[in-house]
């Protein structure tokens, strides 16, 4: 079984330096909903409105958290639809294919997405 995969991976353009700058800003204002315009370093899953879809570009996490997100299908390149937030506004529920995943805004804010 040898599969040839498409050459380009997701999340190509951003430079490392650029990213770390974002990181600093992001931590400073984490937990707040980031608006699309303004100083937002990147568009995250946390910014997506209900019933809107997006594509995952990069996970700004590492270790066990990252692995957990990956295990549940939050993998770069995958399309995600925002379903709803919990009655107290956190956590969120998203749809990936036929499965429904819930995650907190804090984690969603670390998932960089692009519009589809």
């Amino acid at each position, binding site marked *: 079984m040898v599969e040839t995969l498409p050459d380009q*991976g997701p999340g190509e353009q951003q430079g490392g330096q650029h990213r770390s700058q974002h990181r600093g800003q992001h931590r400073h204002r984490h937990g707040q909903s980031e608006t699309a315009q303004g100083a937002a370093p990147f568009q995250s899953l946390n910014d997506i409105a209900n019933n809107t879809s997006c594509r995952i570009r*990069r996970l700004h996490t*590492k270790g*066990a958290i990252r692995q957990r997100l990956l295990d549940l299908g939050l993998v770069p390149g995958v399309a995600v639809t925002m379903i709803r937030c919990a009655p107290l506004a956190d*956590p969120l529920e998203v749809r990936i294919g036929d499965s429904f995943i819930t995650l907190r805004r804090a984690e969603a804010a670390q998932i960089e997405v692009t519009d589809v």
Partner: protein
Amino acid sequence: MSETMPEETAEKTRLLVALAGQQNAGKSTLFNMLTGVKQHIANYPGVTVDKKSGSYREDKTFVEIVDLPGTYSLTSFSLEERVARKFLLDERPDVVVNVLDASNLRRGLYMTFQLLEMGYPVVVALNMMDVAARHGLDYDLSLLEQRLGVPVVPVVGRKGTGREALRKAIIARAQEQETVPATLNYGKLEEAVAEIQASLSACPEIVEIASARWLAVKLLEGDEGAEELIRKQRPDQTAVVTRAQDLAQAFEAIEDLTASDHIVTCRDHLAGDIETTCVTDHKKGKTPLSERIDRFLLNRWLAPLFLVLTVWVIYELSIVQGYELTKITWPALAWARNFIADLLPQAGFLNDPQVRAMGLWMVDSANTLLNYVPIFLILFALIAILEDSGYMARIAFILDRILHRFGLHGQSTLPFILAGVFAGGCAVPGVMSTKGIPDQRARLATILTVPFMNCLAKVPLYTLLINIYFVETKGLILFYLSTITVIAALLVAKLLSVSVLRGMETAPFVMELPHYHTPTFEGVLRRSVDRTWIYIKKVGTVVVAVAAVVYVLLQYPGLPEEHEAYYQQQAEVAIADFHKSLDGNKYAAVVADYDALVSLVNVYTSYKARKLNAQGKEASLAVDERFKDRYPDFYPFLKRSRDKEGRAAIRALKTLATTRKTLRREMKEERIVTSFLGQIGRGLEPVTQFANFDWKINVALLSSFAARESSVATLGVLFEQDEGENKTLEERMGNQQKEAGYTALMAVSIMLFFALYPPCLATTIMVRVQTHSYLWMSFSIVFPTILGLTVSSLVYSLGAALSFTGLEMMTATYFFLLGLLLLVAFSGRFFRGGALRPGSPGSGTVHSVS
């Protein structure tokens, strides 16, 4: 891939088969299907993950099956994954059955790829084909086999469909001489993978234990477990680890994509591709039924309403209706007690044989606990329905925000419900069910606060005190008590997670909301019976053992000789009086000797007890008949007749029996006062005086450590009175306490202490099992004791100083804690750093991408 597993040429007659797959893919169901009942649960060495193994025979082959812990992949991040991985590497199973959920193939395949890369002979058991069909998924199985390069067996574990085919496939796979090398292409990283793989292949020590291809990929992913494995096997070969790191960095610099991101993306692409080609989705684009249901159940405004309704239904069915059921089951337990009482040696006049006294003490202790079995059966069945239907996950979704604010986790909901959020539950299954919480810090916080919930055993003491001191405001006090424990648990969880638990590993709340499905009757029944069985085992072991210890502590060192002699002399006087008053009576001959007299007194006591329990005139007459039949000689002493001599006999016996009871009570009391436990209770008075606990209360609270139920039983003994008077414990305690100058304020301090009291022994043992640490077990005992004593002392001293009544002080305490709760909840907004950010505090690496 280049290497294969070591092969045996001879046909294998013993096979080791591992079941691997995600949680809830149906591994345990398939395990049961394959093995039948021959199974055995143990622990993996050194960890608390259950190891379920079983066996069956297929033709001439003996197959041993091990159910691995459910994992999504085989990284080294979680305990389950480390355990599964270690088993695969160390035990080298002959076949790995990869259980996949057919309704979600794509995610399941990540694991399949890893197993293939590791070089194991894999059989895919495609489970939940029924669910897949319901979701409109159509499988091209031969294409799937072809693309994966392994046999794929469709099964429906729940119905047992595909059992033979799966067994055959396992045997066939094991007999295959060669493992078909399978791999997936890592595109731009392929060159790096190949290079590392080549250098690893050169070391036989490494290839012997793990596939070079898999290790190469793991090293490029930066997997710590893999790096460690190499360091351990070939300390001289660590250059390859560094080389892999360099290659990964080089890749990232060029592609602006981490190597590990690239690797998972490759896996996901392949999985997605296989899914699209092999599975036709006939309902594509349609909204699944579950989502349509969730539009109501998880609606912003309706969700809390449904949640409250669910909780109410559970409370009503299990606690309220369950109590009704105990009225039916209690006579059975009482019957058992009488049965055992008859088997034991008969009671003496003053002192009972040790066997009898201790035997009955143990039976009573066990009975108090077994009495709750119907409630647990209902409660655990309802909870199983919540779990199986998928609603439990939704409850976690709704409540996570609140729980998280206090250092807990959405999945803390189940442990709290089991332990008795709404009055009634048991901390033992509560602590056990924390197993599934992925966040270590939240998990420990849950384990340590679950015992604050109102377990069923706390209720009798509350009821007792409320009936003495708060007759008019019963409802209000009960409401305070049932909610104050939740408030306390949340506050303590917060306190612990910012203090002692501060440095612990945390994990995010990322969870799948499963599709709703109708729970099956057997599934619910099995889970409910299993969990109740755990509870019964607790009764059978820990509680009975501790009851024995408490018994000894209460009985010894016993009465001094002079006192014993004094009581004996009193008894002799009473007996002499009895004989004197029966002088010339025609019934006197029946009790001519001492043994007969003792028997008569015992029969009289038992007759009175049964008459008292008999409900209705008919039952009462039946008791008469039975005694008349069984003890014709004694009967004139029991039943009033016209016969003048008979009446005299009854009168004489009554006097004697009353004197005996009084003497026995006095002896018992004296024995307890001087007993070891009594001495301890007294010794604690200097500490507990601020909460106004006297030694009797101390003894009761100490004995409740064995099992909470004991507190009321012990109080019952301590405040015992002549049975003839038939006063309830409420009255007895009330009188004695009021004489001693105790007030409702003290009741409040006892109840608060009891609410915060450390877990019972069985729970602390479960804490030890779940945390795997004696340190946390000790902490779970010491901390609540100090906390409870502090709170009780403060409440009592303040209340006394301000001359508040019990109710006023309870209200004040309640609102103080509620205020504190709200303060913590809302102040979080201003410094939520530690609370919201996983990996914090002080973890600067959260965002760094290496």
